[in-house]
């Protein structure tokens, strides 16, 4: 120590050097991890939560609803829209740096928002469960969402391309019109059958392979809205090929692919989205296997049949509305 005591400058230099060295290290420019303020900061609103359609939105006229809100934090939010009569829902989720600014085109998660319906708009923040805002918007008309895919049947068509086909066990199979309870528009198909059969009628939808160009089995979704009040009801979806290219769908000559959907008997509309990769080769009856693969360039027709989950005798039925093919993602 006498060495340092006799050289106090050296001791001071050494201590100063250590302090300076503390600032030598691999410090990073940006802070580590998520922003704490967005997780635990107190949330204040710099701009009230509101939208631009105080007199209601006319989707038919191309209106959209712009929701906006400003906050003091970069915060995660969820904006939930709920139709008060339809029960339809839709949600926006995001991370607003300091604001929320989203456009609603009438999209829906499950069933459609109805015309003349109040939609409650709830703005919530997962990291701030005590902070939320509520607003509402009136929907005058349902939006036209057919541009989201290839609409096969909405039952509102003046010149429909679909047909319906009855059978031995069919009790009724009709398009119900001027129906206030349609999931979309004012019409839907209702089929009811009785007995121990499994085919009580079908909705037949012709398909043009040209409309499927560029798509694949994994990214093609059949979206269908169904409702039933009969226990054990189901819909068998059949995909028909024109395998031999004769322009006809002939049993025993062309391949058929199917998938079966059980339908809840809760008298509530449900949207079911099925990727085409879920279809399996149907070898029932005298159906045949040619290559066992769905060839998109040979697809000719799609049937939604009224059926049952088993083979018991009883009464079965279901309602079908708004059948649309979408590509890349479900409707």
């Amino acid at each position: 120590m006498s060495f340092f005591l006799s050289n106090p400058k050296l001791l001071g230099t050494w201590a100063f050097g250590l302090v300076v060295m503390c600032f030598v290290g691999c410090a990073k420019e940006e802070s580590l991890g998520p922003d704490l303020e967005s997780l635990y900061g107190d949330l204040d609103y710099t701009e009230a939560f509101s939208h631009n359609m105080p007199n209601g939105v006319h989707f038919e006229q191309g209106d959209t609803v712009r929701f906006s809100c400003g906050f003091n934090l970069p915060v995660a939010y969820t904006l939930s829209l709920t139709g008060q009569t339809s029960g339809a829902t839709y949600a926006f989720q995001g991370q607003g740096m300091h604001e929320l600014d989203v456009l609603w085109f009438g999209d829906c998660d499950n069933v459609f928002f109805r015309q003349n319906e109040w939609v409650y708009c709830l703005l919530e923040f997962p990291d701030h469960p005590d902070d939320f805002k509520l607003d509402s918007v009136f929907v005058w008309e349902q939006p036209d969402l057919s541009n989201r895919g290839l609409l096969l049947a909405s039952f509102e068509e003046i010149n429909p391309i679909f047909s319906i086909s009855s059978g031995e066990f069919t009790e009724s199979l009709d398009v119900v019109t001027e129906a206030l309870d349609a999931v979309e528009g004012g019409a839907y198909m209702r089929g009811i059958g009785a007995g121990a059969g499994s085919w009580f009628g079908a909705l037949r939808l012709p398909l043009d392979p040209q409309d499927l160009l560029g798509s694949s089995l994994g990214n093609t979704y059949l979206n269908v809205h169904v409702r039933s009040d009969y226990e054990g009801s189901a819909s068998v979806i059949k995909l028909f090929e024109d395998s031999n290219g004769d322009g006809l769908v002939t049993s025993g000559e062309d391949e058929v692919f199917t998938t079966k959907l059980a339908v809840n008997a809760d008298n509530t509309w449900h949207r079911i989205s099925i990727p085409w990769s879920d279809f399996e080769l149907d070898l029932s009856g005298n159906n045949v296997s040619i290559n066992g693969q769905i060839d998109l360039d040979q697809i000719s027709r799609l049937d939604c049949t009224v059926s049952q989950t088993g083979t018991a005798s009883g009464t079965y039925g279901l309602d079908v509305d708004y059948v649309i093919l979408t590509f890349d993602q479900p409707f």
Partner: protein
Amino acid sequence: MRAWILSVICIPLAATAQYPSFELGGLARGVSDVGFLTAEDTIARDVNVESHAIYDLALRGKITAKAEIYTELRLGTNLALFDTSASYAQVRRVLLSGQLTPRWNYEIGDIDVVGTPFTIWNSNTEGAVQESALFSQWRQLQNYENFSESNSWRLRGAKFEGNWLMKNGGEVKTSNFVSRVQASDEVLRPDVVLVGSTLSWERSNILAAVRVLDFATLGKTIPDGRGSHVANLGGEVKWKGEEWHLHAELGGSTATSLDMDGVPKDSNSPTKGGYWHVSSQFDLGASWNALISARSVSDEYMAPAAQTKRLVFDAAPSSFSQIGNGTWARPLSQGDLLTAPYIPRGSRPWNRAIQRELMTFDPRYGTASPYGLATPNRRGLEMELEHGNAEEPWSVVARLFALQDLTPEGSVARRNYVGYAIAGHFDLATLWTGNRSLKMQGGWQSQAVQRPEILLDPVDFTSTVFDLGVDWALGENIQLGYGAKRISSQGLEYIAVRDINFEVIGFERTTLDVTDMLHACGVTWKINDRTELTTQWQKWLLRDALQGHDGSISKVLFLFQSKF
């Protein structure tokens, strides 16, 4: 070498002979732990009794000139009356060692490995600062049970050491080890090995060393598995002068980036980190020493064998895990850690595993350096002033540190950590003449972390540890003792949650206002130089003010130990 030193300590009754020759030594211990809850704390069970007796027999056998075997055989019973199934036998340690050549030694079996606090280091447990003898004897017991009597890691593997004397007086040494840290189940869990090598050169007052480590996951030991590594490379230099010492260490790590399932990422950009540490020790004369050090550890520096915790803090207490009439599922207190029962193959809060991820720590013991010097994302200064040692009439050691986040976490500002500790002992018998000694010891340790915020509740967290002990020798063989310990922490802290690649992925907002207060008084009867019996009564006062819980537990502890 370490095993040889231990065996010398544990095997005092040695009788050498021609090969093979054997020596025997050991330890006998009886423990009884009776716990009581107060009337307002209990609804069903208010007395808890744990007891056991163990005999550790150490056997050192010189088989040949090149091979020596050291084993520790444990015979134990939980003292359950009329239940012979409660008795057991197990091997605590097996080590084969010897000299391969005049320059090479080897150890195979349960080896002890230690490096530096940045590479391989079994950090000391928290919650003690010159604690009373009544507490420290139980802490030593726990350290013995968990192979944590030093900063070494007890590993299973092999170690090879070599040394060469150079013509200029220098000496080159190398120490290499390999250990299987995890065994593969051949389905999902791969083999994990820890491999290390140290090469050092020493001459008169200079030492230079290079150390390499690899915590390697062997992917090929499971189907479709892929290997990963955490590799460390470090170097250190020591210089010893007459009045001052200098130590500098520098190193880094590179680790395979893993996905959430622990599988190496396809686009693998390794996680890289580094550290440096410089310290100087000064001999101030008259038994005074001073130490000053500075360090910086980056946020992604990974050292699986140094950034560990000895304790699994989320384990449930072994006795009275719920108090307050069953309303408080209390966390582990310091009393639980000291008196955790030993159960063969049973669950204990003590941990001996080395793993890649950072283990959770208990913020009540402070958040400045939960993983010791190797705690990631810290920089700062430490100072220490020391006088005397335990053999002298009095001693004191004072420490002060000022640390800072190297990179801010979740905020634009860095947290600042300030801590100090002062501890020592004083033999009051030096004030009078006579045989009866009265020794006091104790310490106070405090650390605080702060960070101002505008839109957040600011970080403001303090934790303290207080220890006091008084030992009064009534005669040559009887000693009365009193001990007090208080551990408390209050405030708010945001604790970083890190993923397997040490990336901060979130924060846990932690608010604490807890206090553990322990009182102990007891008597020790030294039956002879190697045998003693201690009976003590402990009172634990536990409080969690934020949750509105408090409770107390009483313990009567008997500890009989004999070394032979």
